[in-house]
């Protein structure tokens, strides 16, 4: 292996690692706040990428129907409760978010030929279509079980994952899609070509991580999420409802997922089920961080990206095996160095 290949592989690894890092952060966030191991995180990546690909192909993405359907289910669930309790004041916002919004998106899609829109608008539209599904999925699948054990929540996650994969196949078909690159710019670094797209992915990931840092350190809503992760009873006494925290972090996680999907869509061919493996690699990063530490999770995910890239050169048939085997020494090391703490039952 010469320097040129080394650099090329490194570039690949850092690009993928940046995406895994974003997903690892989302997984740590959701676990810290809600105790949910969010397996469907990867599906948001695939949905984001494939929704963008559909728009670029000039088709109406099937995700708009899912958005409408989920919105209706949320309205039925929450609306019945609100009517029963006589809280009519909250009905308008419920209807606007869960019915008005999806209908507006659908109207835009049918009014404007999506294929002719500028790329930036297509990206925006993909985000607007898929991100609201995050809090909706939370409301429909997790909120009724918010107090359940980690294992029950994990089982729900598996179910949501399977359902989303199936719907993905229905909406996007079995063929993979790849979107055109955002930029054709290319540089040269020590004799190896450096793709503009790579730089874009790394820069966008870094910007998003900086934005998340700002959100958690500087805004009251970010602090409220951290507070919920630290002490749920204390947070409730401050008026921070667990459902508010749950919806907020699912919105963030969905946004991170869709954003990642849009970033990698020009680099890799994405199939309806590609999200799972991508999400799982983010999960390996999150495990390295013990599902608790954001910086360690991000670094772990970067390591996963590099390991995957170099192992695809030396032992490409085994690259997934190598990446996932990495969990074993990490878990061994963690279980030997961490004192066991009984999980607090609520």
């Amino acid at each position, binding site marked *: 292996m010469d320097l040129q290949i080394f650099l090329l592989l490194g570039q690949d690894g850092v690009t993928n690692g940046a995406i895994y890092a974003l997903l690892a952060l989302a997984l740590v966030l959701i676990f810290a706040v809600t105790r949910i191991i969010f397996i469907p995180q990867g599906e948001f990546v695939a949905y984001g990428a494939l929704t963008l690909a559909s728009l670029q192909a000039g088709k109406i993405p099937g995700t708009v129907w899912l958005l409408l359907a989920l919105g209706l289910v949320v309205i039925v669930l929450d609306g019945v409760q609100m009517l029963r309790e006589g809280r009519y004041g909250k009905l308008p916002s419920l209807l606007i978010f869960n019915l008005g919004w999806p209908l507006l998106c659908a109207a835009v899609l049918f009014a404007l030929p999506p294929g002719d829109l500028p790329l930036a608008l297509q990206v925006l539209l993909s985000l607007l279509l898929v991100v609201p599904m995050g809090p909706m999925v939370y409301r429909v699948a997790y909120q009724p079980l918010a107090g359940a054990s980690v294992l029950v929540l994990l089982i729900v996650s598996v179910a949501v994952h399977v359902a989303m994969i199936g719907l993905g196949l229905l909406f996007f078909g079995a063929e993979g899609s790849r979107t055109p690159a955002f930029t054709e710019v290319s540089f040269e670094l020590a004799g190896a070509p450096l793709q503009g797209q790579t730089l874009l992915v790394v820069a966008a990931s870094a910007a998003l991580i900086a934005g998340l840092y700002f959100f958690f350190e500087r805004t009251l809503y970010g602090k409220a999420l951290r507070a919920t992760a630290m002490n749920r009873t*204390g947070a409730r006494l401050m008026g921070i*409802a667990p459902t508010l925290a749950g919806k907020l972090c699912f919105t963030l996680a969905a946004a991170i997922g869709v954003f990642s999907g849009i970033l990698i869509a020009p680099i890799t061919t994405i199939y309806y089920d590609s999200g799972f493996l991508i999400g799982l690699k983010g999960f390996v990063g999150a495990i390295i961080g013990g599902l608790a530490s954001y910086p360690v999770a991000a670094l772990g995910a970067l390591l996963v990206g590099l390991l995957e890239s170099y192992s695809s050169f030396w032992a490409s048939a085994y690259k997934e095996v190598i990446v996932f085997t990495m969990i074993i020494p990490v878990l061994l090391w963690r279980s030997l160095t961490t004192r066991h703490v009984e999980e607090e039952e609520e």
Partner: protein
Amino acid sequence: MSHVIPSHLHDHEVILDVRDLRVAYGKVEALHGVSLSIRRGEIATVIGPNGAGKTTLLSALMGLLPASGEIVYMGHAQGREREVEALVRQGMTLVPEKRELFAEMSVEDNLLLGAFDRYRTGHRDHLETLDEVFEWFPRLEERRGQLAGTLSGGERQMLAMGRALMAKPKLLMLDEPSLGLAPLIIKEIFRIIGELKKTGVAILLVEQNARAALQIADVGYVLETGEVTLSGPSGELAADPRVVEAYLGFGKKH
């Protein structure tokens, strides 16, 4: 025992009126028909031994435990579905026995989160409220950048109270504020509680330290094994031989 309210307070607005409150853990009933009432600018104290149900009473009032009975808060009868967050919005706050601070956050962030619900509902006066809280507890201002988990016991209690005051409560419920604190700090905390009532907040103080609690309270309730056995103006209670013998023990050692 019926609840006795001193007549001179009748012109004050009733903040909380509880009748026949019952709370059960499974089949075991922990509170058997407790009644009490608190007015604006008044301190009511609930004293009693360990395990009498004092913390259960506060948890039930705050909506953390399901309860049956009649709870009228600010003139509105409460339904069966009482949610903590809804009560916080209506100005009810609880400083729990365990304090429930956000240990890995700074003192200032803990305080700011106390104003979260006001911030969420569009009140952007949290920085002024923060200054007011720092006036009550100058110690917290000195420690504003320090992590809450590194504070001493007394400072933690001050932080928990300061955080509750950030919500500008109408009813402040304090669960054993003297628990585990040094005598000098207890004195300071009780002095502040006594002064807080001038702001018009109604305070429900649950204490094992009966002497200190009856000194600053207007009315008192004695809670024993889930029932109110005595109640009345705190001056009368403090003079009642039964209270003296069981909780104040002037000169008598058991």
